[in-house]
């Protein structure tokens, strides 16, 4: 009796907490929403001196870094999952699988410092000057790889994010690949399919929805990542066409500007409004991933 009541309360508590956070963020951001209106979502301004704020640059940075990270992470994660479920000798599967899971547990600040002190100098010293010089004069590519080689920027941030989400996606993919009934695969092998053909024609169609769900889970993590991105994104409120250009994400601008925002100011309100927007984006992404993963995880 008491236990059931306590459990019910705990369940309700989560819902209340979630609702309270959404309401508080919305109320906090109301000042900015009512001051700027819908323009807030598309305005690229962020001028604390004149008190003009807009969400376009952080939203752009958040979406672009996350998508670039997925483009880099998904093929590698797929490779890991494929190797672990089909190719690797059985004695190797557990240690490698555990290593992947351990990677997911590394605190994000570690990735941030690694990115800032190891990856950024390499990017600034070798990779960026090489790309900038080789693409000079070629339309589009020239714009995509332009600007002074700071080392930090959109591409570096995406790279770090990719490394961070690979273990999530790989672990999910491996788990759903393992849900494929062996009899399907064995009959495919039986009619003479190669490993790749089994993967492409049996495993992927069977798990497609769940694989997309796992990718969305990684996307959710990439969207909200704060510390590691803050270190390497360059933290500038401009939309640049260059991948090497500095940018901003919602999480990084909130983390950086929060301490210097006086209570009751329009700036604080704008930051809370940004938090609300991020919450909504993450919520949608996670909801989709849950929806897609549900049929497979139940079995």
């Amino acid at each position, binding site marked *: 009796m008491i236990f059931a009541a306590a459990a019910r309360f705990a369940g309700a508590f989560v819902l209340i907490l979630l609702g309270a956070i959404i309401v508080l963020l919305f109320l906090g951001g109301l000042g900015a929403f009512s001051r700027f209106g819908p323009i807030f979502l598309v305005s690229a301004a962020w001028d604390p*001196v004149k008190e003009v704020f807009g969400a376009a640059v952080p939203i752009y940075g958040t979406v672009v870094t996350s998508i670039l990270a997925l483009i880099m992470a998904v093929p590698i994660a797929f490779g890991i999952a494929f190797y672990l479920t089909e190719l690797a000798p059985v004695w190797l599967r557990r240690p490698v699988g555990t290593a992947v899971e351990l990677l997911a547990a590394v605190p994000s600040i570690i990735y941030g410092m690694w990115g800032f002190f190891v990856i950024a100098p390499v990017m600034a010293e070798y990779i960026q000057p090489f790309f900038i010089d080789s693409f000079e004069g070629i339309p589009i590519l020239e714009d995509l790889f332009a600007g002074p080689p*700071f080392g930090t920027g959109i591409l570096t941030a995406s790279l770090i994010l990719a490394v961070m989400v690979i273990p999530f996606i790989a672990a999910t993919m491996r788990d759903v690949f393992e849900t494929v009934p062996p009899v399907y695969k064995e009959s495919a092998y039986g009619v003479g399919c190669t490993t790749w053909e089994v993967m492409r024609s049996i495993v992927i169609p069977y798990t497609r929805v769940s694989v997309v769900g796992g990718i969305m889970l990684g996307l959710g993590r990439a969207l909200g990542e704060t510390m590691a991105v803050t270190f390497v994104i360059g933290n500038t409120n401009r939309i640049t066409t260059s991948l090497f250009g500095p940018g901003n994400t919602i999480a990084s601008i909130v983390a950086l500007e929060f301490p210097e925002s006086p209570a009751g100011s329009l700036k604080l309100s704008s930051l809370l409004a940004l938090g609300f927007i991020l919450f909504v984006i993450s919520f949608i992404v996670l909801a989709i991933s849950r929806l897609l993963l549900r049929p497979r995880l139940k079995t």
Partner: protein
Amino acid sequence: MRIVGMAVAIGLAVVASGASAQQITGAGATFPAPVYTKWGEAAKAAAGIELNYQAIGSGGGQNQILNRTVDFGASDAPMDPAKLTEGKLLQFPTVMGAVVVIVNLPDIKANEIKLTGEVLADIFAGTITKWNDPKLVALNPGVKLPSLAIAPVHRADGSGTTFVFTSYLSAVSPDWKSKVGASTSVNWPAGAGAKGNDGVAATTHNTRGGIGYVENAYATQNKLVTTQLRNKAGQFVEPTMAAFSAAAASGDWANAKNYAVNLIDQPGDKSWPIVSATFIELPKDPKDPARSAAVMKFFDWAYGNGDSIASGLEYIPLPAPVKAAVRSVWHAEIKGPDGKPVM
């Protein structure tokens, strides 16, 4: 006899620990945090006051003292006078510090490059983009400037250092003042942002052609390549303690309301142009007078005995008349619930 002696010893120990437990809490600016921490360590033994200082940023410090969740707030930018009145706060300065410009250019030694405020503003505004720009070449005859893109690096987090630096750019460049302005964070027209002094230093160090600004103490400790700047008198000065002190001495303390003295771009042949004071905000009607008294006792001790610690960390101590004025203001303005002065 032995038992009595032991009892006395225990009693003394209790009294001693009770005295050393006189704690005060403060929060705010990161810029003076090193000197406050050192003062705290020294004052614990010398004055029996234990300081718990949280370097959460100037804006955060102002919020916390307005909410009265700490004993004192600390900020680099002086607080808005209306807010001081509204929050019944007294503001006073503690030490002064300087901001210096750092560069990363091949084969360039410290203080070899000469810059003016206008050129610096143009660089950070993105209108001067190459190191061999005619304006830079004209300022630096005899220095071999490479044909390299300038990569301006600024603070990404809200920061008192940014407030001081942009105040200087606004003072020397009307263009900067109208387009960007001065604040703890501004809408930077060019360059990349980095977190903290260490972030700016590291990004500048990583980026060939980089230029950034950091607190002087940070540049000295890490042996960064600084530049000369032209001051209001038209002289090029190197960032030295003598140049900082010269600027500090020429500040007009007597006429500064709430001690919000302007030390930016001061006259004088030897003055370094980017110097600023850092401030403490203290309630005028403390709920717990004993704690406020301890705060004033702490800073009284620091005024009297902390100068050498401050200079050791490359901060500039306040002039003696300013300290005397602050001490008398403590007595006159901060009153307990009974209306009597706390100090």
